[in-house]
């Protein structure tokens, strides 16, 4: 076990990173005086890990939606489900699967160690049977149908499908009713054994606790076996740099068209660096933030409303800037974004807006340290993308005008995918 204390002189904050002998990375962030404790036990396994190389180097494809299905089923152990164990302690518990991770979490104001024990136990105790798998297919089937009717979900996945030929980020996290029908107790065990090795996992704790005591507790209660260092060997293959389609659309029952615009940075399945993330966040804020000339123009031309937002959508093996919202004229929104990017490239760079954007993002980051949940979420991102959390704040401070200008190169018509969900024409079918 190897412990290091990670400090930030800029923020005057610190946390401990423990490389546990089992291979597990443990992040501890004590918050004296706070009432709540928050914990995340997660694995670097999400919907993008849809294929792996077996021991013979052969690629094996997995059913779409299996990581999410596994998350649902892990709540059940042979001695009852985790929800009923947490019910006894009063903790709030949940789990989620995203593109590049699966996380199990709880928050509580008391009985922290009882809750931690439950978390450490059930995530390490898979129990899948044919009957429990069948039962879950009905519930997840309803979850999938719920997302099918959510236009903001559809518009984003249509964009990803338009952007990528093969990259698994284009796959719906929950899969489809057809793909989850292929899941069996055996495939779940296979995936569990491959992706839930402690060396592929992380444990993040924030709250009012004593570090030494927590570490002792983990050492006593974490089930470790000899398969821990088995490699997950997930593969995400590279694909062309060009987008598959520039325009994708469908119809749903919405009031006005929804749009989602993405820009393809690269076909290579690459995880962004922390400097790249910080730079693009500042750039997006300058380009389309509430103080930008573009935002003012879009709003005054009635082209966007309060639904407008943007993000640097990043994860293990992917990174792309995204804009979404509602508009009667999504193509014009795209044109204006491209025109504004060109303006910034050719002398329109505003130093005042650059500095203000940097400060806003810094301030927003600082505020997240005020909650145990915010801290755990930031540390989880850093664990999955494998960077030092504090480097993010240092990177924000170090980004230069030239960095921003370099990152602007992605904003071209060829790299863009415009996805639109149009209203259903009334009176038709």
């Amino acid at each position, binding site marked *: 076990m190897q412990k290091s204390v990670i400090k930030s002189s800029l923020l005057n904050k610190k946390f401990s990173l423990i490389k546990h002998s089992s291979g597990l990375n443990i992040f501890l962030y004590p918050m004296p005086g706070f009432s709540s404790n928050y914990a995340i036990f997660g694995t670097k396994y999400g919907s993008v890990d849809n294929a792996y190389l077996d021991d013979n180097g052969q690629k094996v494809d997995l059913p779409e939606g299996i990581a999410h299905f596994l998350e649902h089923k892990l709540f059940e152990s042979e001695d009852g489900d985790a929800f009923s164990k*947490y019910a006894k302690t009063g903790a709030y518990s949940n789990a989620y699967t995203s593109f590049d991770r699966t996380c199990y979490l709880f928050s509580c104001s008391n009985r922290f160690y009882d809750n931690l024990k439950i978390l450490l136990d059930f995530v390490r105790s898979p129990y899948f049977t044919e009957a429990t798998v069948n039962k879950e297919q*009905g519930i997840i089937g309803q979850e999938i149908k719920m997302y099918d*009717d959510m236009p903001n979900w559809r518009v984003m996945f249509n964009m990803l499908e338009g952007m990528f030929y093969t990259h698994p980020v284009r796959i719906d996290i929950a899969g489809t009713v057809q793909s989850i029908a292929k899941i069996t107790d055996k495939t779940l065990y296979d995936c569990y054994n491959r992706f839930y090795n402690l060396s592929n996992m992380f444990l993040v704790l924030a709250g009012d606790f004593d570090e030494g005591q927590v570490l002792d507790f983990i050492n006593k209660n974490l089930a470790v076996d000899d398969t821990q260092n088995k490699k997950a060997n997930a593969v995400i293959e590279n694909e062309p740099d060009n987008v598959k389609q520039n325009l994708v659309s469908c119809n749903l029952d919405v009031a006005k068209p929804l749009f989602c615009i993405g820009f393809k940075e690269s076909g290579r399945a690459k995880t962004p660096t922390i400097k790249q993330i910080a730079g693009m966040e500042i750039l997006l804020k300058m380009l389309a933030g509430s103080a930008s000339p573009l935002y003012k123009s879009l709003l005054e031309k009635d082209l966007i409303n309060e639904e407008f937002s943007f993000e640097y959508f990043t994860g293990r093996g992917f990174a792309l800037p995204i804009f979404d919202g509602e508009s009667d004229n999504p193509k014009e929104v795209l044109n204006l974004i491209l025109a504004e990017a060109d303006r910034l490239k050719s002398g329109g760079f505003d130093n005042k807006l650059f500095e203000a954007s940097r400060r806003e993002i810094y301030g927003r980051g600082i505020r997240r340290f005020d909650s145990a949940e915010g801290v755990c979420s930031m540390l989880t991102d850093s664990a999955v993308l494998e960077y030092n959390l504090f480097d993010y704040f240092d990177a924000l401070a170090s980004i230069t005008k030239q960095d921003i200008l370099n990152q602007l190169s992605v904003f071209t018509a060829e790299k863009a995918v415009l996805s639109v969900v149009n209203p259903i024409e009334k009176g038709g079918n």
Partner: protein
Amino acid sequence: MKLVPIAKGVNGLFIQNNRFSTTHISVNLYLPLKRETVAVNALLPFVLSSCSAEYPDFSALNLRLNELYGADVGGIADKIGDTQVLRFFSYFIDDEYIPNGDKVADEAVELLISMLFKPSVKNGSFLKADVEREKRLTLEKIAGIVNDKRSYAISRIIAEMYKDEPFGELKTGSAKDVAAITGESLFNAFERVLSSAEVRIQVIGKKLPDRLFDRIAEGLKGYERITPAIAPSVPKKPAAEVNRILEEMDVSQGKLVMGFCTDCVGSERETAFLTVFADLFGGGPYSKLFANVREKLSLCYYCAARPNRNKGYILVDCGVESENAEKAENEILNQLNELKKGNFTDEELNFAISSIKDSLACLNDSEASLDGWYAMRPFGEPISPEEFISLIEKVTKEDIIKAAGLYRLDTVYKIMPQGKKGE
């Protein structure tokens, strides 16, 4: 917590909390919820927080806020039963956390005060461009409710249940009323609101900004200050029969919402046992609805009960296949009956109580949640989360049985795929 009287109808509340790196201020204006004023009042926070006399241009205001390390000023409108609340916020990072010795606190407070008292107006009217912009945004928000079928179904059932009362209005007011707002009518509303609203200023942070309470009282001095009586809500009159509404839409999954009413409106003691009841019925994973409708029958991904303490209703909602809608409805009613008959264990009751206690204790770790907790309790001295915990601890099995018996099914709202009526 003790309210500090500042002026007629104006109170201050300071909750000192040394754990945070930010200060959170809200100025809350309470008014009786009336059909004829709900829309015009509700637009005020949006227009006022988008610009001011000092920053007539919203981009310039936003740029300044970004420069203050993401300090924020903003406004929203909400309903607390039969009371309307207009909420204005400012939150900012405390100066000690700002790099290079910069300071933001004083200016962020100044922006809040000028947002309230120095709006961008001309000749007794807000500027047309500002009013029309915010009207459009509100109208599009109203039109967009339909996009998310779960929220849409909930907004529709509330409108149906309370169609004869102001509470049936959206918190933005109706599209028709929003469209009719002018720069003049909004300015009249501004003066009327500052003259007649009951005001509560709440501050959560390390210290109370200098003279904040006094300065807001001074700002209000120019107005007449007739405080209207805001009062706890009136419960819904029992309906002769259950109102059933079916809407067909182009969806793949149906939605079922059931509205149940009681006569209990807002006392903390009643709120405590109705909160525990709702949690046991359809709150956490140990609840009757989760355990039976989802886990046992696999009918839904979600099936939840949400109480509204101010109007005393509870909504149960789920997403369900059309052919299973009737089965789900029957099972929901069946589970309510089980609770009425006392068919639940002490252990299940304790699950609900400890879960609620735990999440209430966590409120102290979020400035925004604490602010919301107090702001939603405008009638007299508000109870703290800790005091409410002691009421939750006292809830007994008999209270739950009694609570279950108080609910009468009022309205059932269903959205089903075209051609499938879910019967």
